[in-house]
């Protein structure tokens, strides 16, 4: 049931190039937090909100940008960059935010655990 699509918010609620956190349900039915990013390019990404380096739920408050061709979010705590597409930390690919499927249906953003 938790791997079904979960509606989160209207697309308009997401400010371009800024993140937003959402409370959702994880794949095992547990509470989970997701960080949504709507880029100015139009791409939409959903990754875990928890910073794996510090354990704090802050990723949605990081700045977005690019490293070469890679779209990234930068943790606001200690500035590690993560690939928004894979969730992996650029300097330590073993560490990942985790990613969620994301889509827009009738102007509503929906996420689904992978």
């Amino acid at each position, binding site marked *: 049931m938790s791997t079904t699509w979960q509606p989160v918010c209207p697309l308009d*609620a997401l400010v371009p*190039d800024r993140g937003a956190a*959402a409370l959702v349900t994880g794949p095992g039915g547990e509470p989970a937090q997701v960080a949504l990013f709507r880029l*100015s390019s139009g791409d939409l990404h959903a990754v875990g909100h928890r910073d794996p380096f510090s354990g704090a*739920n*802050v990723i949605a408050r990081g*700045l*977005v940008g*690019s490293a070469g061709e890679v779209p990234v979010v930068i943790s606001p705590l200690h500035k590690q960059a993560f690939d928004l597409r894979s969730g992996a930390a650029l300097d330590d690919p073993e560490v990942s935010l985790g990613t969620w499927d994301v889509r827009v249906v009738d102007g509503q953003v929906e996420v689904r655990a992978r």
Partner: protein
Amino acid sequence: MSKRTLAVVGAGMVAHRLVEALVERGATTEWDIEVFGEESRPPYDRVALTSFFTLRDPDELLLGDRGLWRTTGVRLHRSSPVDAIDPAAGTLTTHGRRVRYDAAVLATGSSATVPPVRGADAEGCFVYRTVDDVAELRAWVNERSGRAGGRPARGVVVGGGLLGLEAAGALTQLGAETTVVELSDRLMPLQVDAGGGEALRRLVEELEVRVLTGTASTEVVTGRNGRVKALRTDGPTLDTDVVVFATGVRPRDELARAAGLEVHERGGVLADEACRTSAEGVYVIGEAAHVAGRTWGLVGPGYAMAEVVADRLLGGDARFEGADPSTKLKLLGVDVASFGDAFGRTDGSLEVVYSDPVAGLYKKLVMSDDASELLGGVLIGDASAYTSLRPMVGRPLGVDPTAWLLPDGVEPPGSGDLPDDAVVCSCNNVAAGQIRSAVCDAGCTDLAGVKACSRAGTSCGSCVPLVKRLMDAELEAAGVTIDRGLCEHFSVTRAELYEIVRITGLTRFSEIIGRHGTGHGCDICRPVVASILASLGRGHVLDDENAALQDTNDHVMANLQKDGTYSVVPRIPGGEITPDGLIAIGEVARAFGLYTKITGGQRIDLFGARIEQLPQIWERLVDAGFESGHAYGKALRTVKSCVGSTWCRYGVQDSVGLAIALELRYRGLRSPHKIKLGVSGCARECAEARSKDIGVIASEKGWNLYVGGNGGFTPRHAQLFAEDLTTEELVRTIDRILQYYVRTADRLQRTAPWLEEVGIEHVREVVLEDSLGIGAELDAMMARHVEGYEDEWAATLRDPAKLAVFASYVNAPGTADPDLAYLEERGQRRPAGPVLVAGPSIPVGKP
């Protein structure tokens, strides 16, 4: 082989350099180094003696790394004058004790000479040579000022040379009405010609120092108490409380004479090019030495001799063949430089002179007979060309010499064609080639590295701009692109980007990166653009697209902590707060369960505020009259103050009032890094203003301004920028310094490294003399800032559209992060994890 003993007689600057050179070269495996100094202090910077008045703490004058004297194999014996030396026996005597040596180095320096003037030993007569001399002079003048019943103390300096003008500067700093009496027809007769002396006189007189040249001092008149009352000359008789003799120095060669060493008839221990005296195993260095045909009264040649002896002691064959006697100084705030053949003594030499008595400028270049080669010169009033010109002595100048002299002359040629053997740093005798080699052979890539490796620029620092140009040119030639670009998205520096944004008037990040950068930006360039836009007064930090540029701290106007909550710091200008204000903050903290702590900047930090609580917390703080403290921003933080004349029995000025005025003036100013100010109400400096970017210390006559201090990882003391300013002058000076810093500094560059890079002299010229003609523009920018300021928290609360950023979750805006957990410690709550894995636990209370 057992170690040999080296005795160094004297512990001045040159002795210090000798020991430093020996230790660096590993000589302590062969030699035990015993240094005997008569003063109670370790070696200090005698050249900077006058700064003793502004330093207050003589220890700041100490040379080099104090660790040198803790090196195994090195011993410094303070307060241990050497009374005799016996070269035949290889022993010396100090405090009646005989010390055996295998080699000895005389570094006894010189002493101030007192001319044969009757009464010159009266109470109130001084010389100007050691820290103790200066301290006694200060005590005497302060005591006389106190007794004179309101009138300033009066002082006379006998001697108008370099040392005399230094002493005159010292007396004026002490508030004494000062007269300089010089026997010769001009000031600084050894360094400058008649024209230069005249320009110098005018500049010095402008500083209210009276100058009598061509005047012989004949007698010190004393009062009934035996103290100085007046100085009689062959001109007027001068009433005075103090006489300072600065008529010259004499090499201290008494020890050598008594030991039968050969000395020159006019003083100085005779030595060959290896600095060896006539006695086996005894060397002489510094001002005590007569070597290469003369004595040398400057520290640069002394250092060169120290290096020669260090090399010889280690079996080398270095030779001292003379040194560059060029000097550049600032005396009484006046630039004076003299280099090469300053008097045009070379046969057929030509002089090119530029003189502007109104502006107080005198510049002369001495050229070879065909006007192609530079032989020397004198610069008075503006010596900025000195650094570039001095290494060119003996070489073709390349351009028309007048270009160097006119105030708006051509841009001086670069350093690229400077020959390898041209001496760039004359204090430490470092040639251009050595600086190039520090880059291409030793691999130094920054100024600090080049300075450490070559020693260039480590003494007086006047050559640092040239060293930097040489380093940059060499790096570039080596194919190292000196990437000063901001980040991968912008190849320009922060200062360049600031200019671009200022001139183009762009206000949107997408336009700026689209036209002047690449990609989508990052955590470096986005906040920089936001800060530049804010510095230029282009709108609220949360407006439009630019909201996506702010790091979370600036975005939510609070400081992110390790658990994802924030801390809140209301502004408390000058650290002054009413009881009601304290209660209001306390009530907010209690209502929201915030941990409270007093900050170093005299305000209160409230920790543990969740993002969605920030607007409610600020609603109450704004209601109670508080505004944002900008603790989250690269911006003005605090103006720390002591209580000053408001309450303190020592305070001489209203430091709290000034601190509050300054804090209210600069609050909200965005800058390349945080800015902190401090104001102390007297010289006791309880506000620790000298550890701030801008420090203000009250003087009897106004305010002294210091720039470039900071605490943190690399603590720095601020440097004296200007003295005795009125409040109005002070504010305008700070306005311009801050605006110029905001405009030109690099990202995250605090004022100390900025000042080192651009040079404090340069900033003084820009700010005090408006050398770039941008003074009015800087003033206008600050006026615009002051006028345009509004509290960004109050503005945010007024605009419901801005409150969306404080939603904790887009689908549950007021819900607390369920993962936050707290535990209680010392009566307050703190984050429960992550816990300290290992660490000390310090028991308190009962044993």
